[in-house]
């Protein structure tokens, strides 16, 4: 096969792969997902910050993260709006222990904790505001004796 032909094939394959990856990321990125209920509990000491009275939004960020700033804006807006909700941002690089424990692969990753620090929802990529509010509704509705 000629060099130009091989190059053309590689080009087409790369662009096709890019389209699939891009469309998948656009569709699934930032979706707020339910988490298995046996997921472990985050204590205030783990985070180095107090948990929210009703719920906590834990955001993992890095310096090399484009959508982290927009995510910070959404989460601080929501936590300012809903009483008893705290937004805690964690520098993933300085807390690789938490990154590994919660298997964070991308930034931003957002964990939604209920008032006991149980992880009830998570999102990787920038979550939509309405999805965060809906997830908070669930987290805040978990009664203290529901375990």
């Amino acid at each position, binding site marked *: 096969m000629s060099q*130009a032909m091989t*190059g053309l094939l590689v080009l087409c394959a*790369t*662009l096709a792969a890019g389209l699939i990856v891009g469309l998948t990321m656009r569709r699934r990125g930032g979706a707020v997902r339910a988490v298995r209920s046996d997921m472990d509990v985050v204590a205030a000491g783990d985070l180095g910050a107090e948990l929210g009275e009703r719920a906590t939004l834990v955001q993992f960020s890095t310096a*090399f993260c*484009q959508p982290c700033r927009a995510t910070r804006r959404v989460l601080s807006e929501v936590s300012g709006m809903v009483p008893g909700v705290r937004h805690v941002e964690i520098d993933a690089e300085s807390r690789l222990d938490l*990154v590994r424990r919660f298997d964070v*692969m*991308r930034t931003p990753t957002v964990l939604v904790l209920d008032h006991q620090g149980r992880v009830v929802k998570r999102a990787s990529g920038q979550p939509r505001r309405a999805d965060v509010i809906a997830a908070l509704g669930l987290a805040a509705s978990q009664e203290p004796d529901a375990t």
Partner: protein
Amino acid sequence: MQVDPRSTRFSAVITTVVLALVLLTGNAWLLLAQGVVFALGVAGASPYGLIFRRLVRPRLGPPAELEDSTPPRFAQGVGLVFALAGLIGFAAQITVLALVATAAALLAAFLNAAFGFCLGCEMYLIIRRLMPAATR
């Protein structure tokens, strides 16, 4: 340092076209030129960014908001690594290396151009996770 996000996107479009031409023509000099552009981009002096400022931005008006330049500069560094690998492939006549490395850089540039998605930035945490010794 702050950067116009449209400039980053514009640069990704040109990079995509240049890398596609490298694949089609097998021209190592073109890849070398793109490698130099990546290196200048890491230094915060991307020639494509200059073209944007001189020729495109005056027609578009000021940006709605600026972005931190750290992520795109890091991504230029990732592009530089792939370009160097590709150049080694061309120089040593290891065609597979030349094609795969160029294709990897093209994939990253295309994702940024078409979707505004920064593949290099996404790789950062995964790379960091693999380096436990470097924990601060």
